[in-house]
């Protein structure tokens, strides 16, 4: 089974509608420790990424990721813009200039994104950021089968996002809150867990359809 450009295009379409749906909830979350706009950044960013990807003709996976990066970044700015743009650029590098990649390799997209975010944000796990969803998900990979990897990454992302509630932010806008940042989940981790979940769900579906031809 191969992961093709049509699958990646679908993924971005899904990201866009997911973030539109979660926009207000993410804004409320950001309001508690930040500036209440994370839902707007993510929904605008993913809408732009989706539009950019959908507008492409006959292209490679890397072209798609690059277009998504540029679309997201230019629509959003903010913190999320450079972070997701860099994540997508790294994912594009991993996918490479080809129109399809083995399904079994797709979990590494999560790892590539995690690296991009860590590098752009100069962040490490435990600082109460989106990296606390991406890094555990990346770390959960490589254990066994594709199915196991995907399941492990998904639950690690969700657990990681949940765990941010008890963290004190030490980077980003919320860092200045110190102790007052504790007790609230990080909105960037929450949106990241949603996106990783959607990605894992897609891979799982594709793997299933392979099993049952």
């Amino acid at each position, binding site marked *: 089974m191969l992961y093709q450009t049509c699958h990646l295009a679908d993924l971005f379409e899904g990201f866009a509608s997911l973030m539109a749906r979660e*926009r*207000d909830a993410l*804004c*409320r979350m950001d*309001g*508690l*420790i*930040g*500036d*209440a*706009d994370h*839902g*707007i*950044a993510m929904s*605008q960013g993913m809408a732009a990424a989706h539009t950019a990807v959908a507008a492409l003709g006959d292209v490679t996976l890397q072209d798609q990721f690059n277009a998504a990066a540029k679309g997201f*970044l*230019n*629509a*959003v*700015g*903010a*913190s*999320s*813009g*450079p*972070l997701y743009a860099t994540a997508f650029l790294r994912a594009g590098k991993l996918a490479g200039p080809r129109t399809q990649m083995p399904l079994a390799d797709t979990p590494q997209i999560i790892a590539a994104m995690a690296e991009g975010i860590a590098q*752009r*944000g100069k962040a490490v796990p435990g600082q109460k950021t989106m990296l606390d969803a991406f890094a555990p998900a990346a770390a959960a990979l490589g254990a066994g089968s594709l199915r196991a990897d995907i399941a492990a990454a998904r639950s690690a992302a969700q657990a990681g996002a949940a765990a941010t509630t008890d963290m004190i932010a030490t*980077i*980003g*806008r*919320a*860092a*200045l*809150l110190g102790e*007052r940042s504790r007790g609230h989940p990080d909105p960037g981790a929450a949106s990241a867990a949603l996106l990783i979940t959607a990605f894992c769900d897609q891979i799982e579906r594709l793997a299933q359809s392979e099993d049952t031809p």
Partner: protein
Amino acid sequence: MTLTQKLINDGNDAVDEMLQGVLAAHGAHLRQAAPRAIVALHGPRAGKVALVIGGGSGHEPAFLGYVGRGLADAAAIGNVFASPPPQPIIDAALASHGGAGVLFMYGNYAGDVMNFDMAAEMLEMDGIEARTVLTTDDVASSPDRSKRRGVAGNVFIFKAAGAAADLDMTLDEVERIARHANARTYTMGVALSACSLPQTRHPNFDLPPGEMEIGMGIHGEPGIRRAALRPANAVVDEIMDRLLAEMQAARGDRVAVLVNGLGATPLMELYILNARIAERLAAEGLAVHLTLVGAYCTALEMAGASVTLMHLDDTLQLLIDHPCDCAMFRQG
């Protein structure tokens, strides 16, 4: 759910429609170099350091109101409370640089730092040197000066750097002055209400009636603590105690004062604050060289105010007095 009352159309169009209205009103001062890059008509010139400022929208008149001869040459405009992406920053730099280098100045926020840094890297590839001075005047935001947010003190800090650039100082000098101006500028604010993003029209935090948030940031970031709303003089005293302790001025020193409204607080209240501020400064033996009172750096329709003191020396005083002519701010 009650939506915040706003005179807007689609919330997603708010920033671009605002820019359209700004350009319609201020065509004698500003032009649009790119959709989100606003340039001074009479600012940039060959051989002059270009001062490029920027940040999220929702702080008007910051940032675009401070673009003009003698102050900033261009501004990059972000979405509401969101740093602009690199492209408009690059557009602003390209439209305003005069071969003597570019100085980026903006408030110290993670998002802005990432976007401006990306822009600086890309400009470097085009052979344009862009340096950065972050503003960090919000004393309530961290004990560590380098981690602090940049808030209303921007007005004075940008003003000093813009004047230095207008006096044809070199990039090195303008940068040094910008850092110096920032190091001597101190702000603290209180919020009396939340504000709402145009897309959600939902208050970005809960502030029960009768309470205020001390040390609130200009994006509704929580401050130092919640407290019962107190009389204006008590609020000023708490702010001034903190600012004066930070500033460490000697009797006879001069200051510039900015009493800034956060959006919904009327001038009457700001002047009431200033009455007490002037008393406190007089009691310290400090001379007030200049006082600005008004909405200079806002957070949409947030109610509240901040006080900024710039600890002047001869250089800064000269630069603060240097004429500037911006669409929303004139001096000299």
